[in-house]
């Protein structure tokens, strides 16, 4: 039987940056088993919506509802980590902050899973791809039930992409959900089961992938 409340929901959510409205009156629900793709042109509000859902930003209007006790992982588009700390130190720090019972073990596990270097060199020295892997690895700390990924595969090689989507699929099968922003429509069809399309901060489409008319894409991304 389906729970009465979604894992995560945007209720008339809006966000302004000064005089600019980045997001306006967005209604969206994320339930167990969802694989939701956020699509839209640059500046449509995808990153802002993910930040609001993650709790990194506060809405200017409306609200974001989270089911009580739900754990959320968030990988922003620009890697969010301390450049002076090594990959391991970043993982250990955020593992402690996320309340992992054994931060060192969690860090070691994710280092291996994402094939990240374990040496103590600063993460600022890592390649763009490795920094993005570290960004994704950090988002998996704390055993999240909902993953919010902002263009997660942009800097990943094909093998790492495959691993990421396998991990996301496993989360979904375990009763969790994931939401990802992307510009890659092939990825949408391959990975997602629902699509939410944004334009100029407004939600212009929300439905199943099969219902999403790819021919609209030209109009949407124009």
């Amino acid at each position, binding site marked *: 039987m389906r729970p009465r409340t979604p894992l995560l929901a945007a209720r008339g959510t809006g966000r302004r*940056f000064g005089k600019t409205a980045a997001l306006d009156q967005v209604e969206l629900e994320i339930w167990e088993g969802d694989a939701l793709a956020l699509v839209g042109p640059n500046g449509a509000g995808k990153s802002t919506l993910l*930040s609001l859902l*993650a*709790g*990194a*930003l*506060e809405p200017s209007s409306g609200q974001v509802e989270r089911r009580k006790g739900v754990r*959320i992982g*968030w990988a*922003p588009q*620009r*890697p*969010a*980590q*301390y*450049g*002076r*700390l090594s990959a391991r*130190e970043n993982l250990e*720090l*955020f593992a*402690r*902050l*996320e309340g992992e019972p054994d931060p060192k073990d969690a860090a070691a596990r994710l280092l291996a899973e994402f094939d990240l270097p374990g040496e103590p060199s*600063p993460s600022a020295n890592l390649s763009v791809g490795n920094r993005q892997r570290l960004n994704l690895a*950090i988002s998996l700390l704390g055993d999240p039930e909902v993953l919010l990924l902002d263009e997660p595969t942009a800097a990943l090689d094909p093998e790492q992409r495959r691993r990421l989507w396998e991990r996301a699929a496993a989360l979904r099968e375990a009763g969790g959900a994931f939401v990802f922003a992307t510009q890659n429509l092939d990825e949408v069809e391959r990975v997602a089961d629902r699509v939410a399309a944004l334009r100029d901060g407004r939600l212009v489409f929300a439905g199943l992938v099969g219902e999403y008319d790819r021919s609209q894409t030209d109009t949407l991304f124009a």
Partner: protein
Amino acid sequence: MLLRKDVLVLRRSPLLLGILLAYPLAIAALVGLVASYASSKPRVAFVDEDNLPPTVIVGGKRFHVDRTIRQVSENVKLVRLSPEAAQRQLSTGGVVAVVTVPPGFVASLQGMVRSPQLELQLSRGTLSSRVEQQVQALVYSLNRQLQRAYIENNLRYVTLILHGGDGSFLGRPIDVLGIERAEKLLAGMPDTPRNRRLRDFLHDARLALANTGDALRSTAHPIELVRVPLRGRTWVLSAEVQAYALGLTITFLALMLAAGSLAAERDENVIGRLARGLVGLGDLIWAKVALAAGVALVLGLAIAIAFGLIVEVGGVTGGEPWRRLPLLVVGLVLAGGALGALGALLGALAREARSASLVALLVVLPIVFLGLIPAEVVPPAAWVSDVLPFAHSVRFFSAALYDLSPWGSVLREGLWLVALGAVFGGLARVGARRLLV
């Protein structure tokens, strides 16, 4: 956890860490040099254009010129030079001042009618006022030596007026009737009202002149300053310099470190990750305040210890009050915390680490200048300074290190620092929301 991370990040910044390690040592060395200079004797040229004899007799008292100069030049090192050599050394910095005895000096001195003059030339520089004070002290000491001779000479004239007899004035022999002899002469005259008035006057004059000696001596020193020893603790320049050095160092470093490290959370794009329930913005501010307090403590103690060693080795008057260091620790933590809170506020407002560091630097300078202006000179500057941590920090440090009874000042300034830290910390917490945008 965040504080540990900040310390780790600090350790990973070799340039910043190197500056943090070198800074206190450099400051301590500079302060030590200044303090050493404060207790050193500046070299002053002594030019004798009057060909001073080995001895000079003033008011019947014999002065050995060289011995007298040695006695009065406690604070300066007098070096006899020719006028040309003195001018050359003054221009090259070999001497900081030139004291010239002009022609006719001894004649004026022995004449005891007109004050002879010494000429003083000072080098151009920030230390000239101090040298001028020291030369003034030299002349003051010389005057004290001469005063007694002048008074004794003046008293001889008084005695002559009182008793009458032979004497000399400006080298000319004189014969004075004297009050006592005048009274005797008057006693043999008829007792008329006019003579009675003269007798009364002479009687009063004799009584008054009888006390002239004490009166002259007391007018020579209307107020005499006696320095009371303060159980081995003296207010030396080194104490003031050290308090300001600590205040300046901590103000610069704590403010810039807190401002830069808070803004860096946004630069690294980590603030959003932290703010989504992992760490409250208040905790983030608190971590920066703790970082600033910790750095202030370590650097401040390093300065105090290094400074103490330098002045001990240099034998500077007053030395370092080692037993007061625990009290200094409290001041360093409170000052570092208050300045860290102000720095965090600047970091929150500036939002970017580079801008934050620049803003902090621009803010530090007026804060320090305001703190250096005496309240008696520009009261509004003191009012503004009172709502900033620098002046309170300096007052705390100087009281903690050198006041005989520091508790009142330390408590008052400590409460100020806590209150300012709370206010700036609260404002920083509100301002930190800007970092999320």
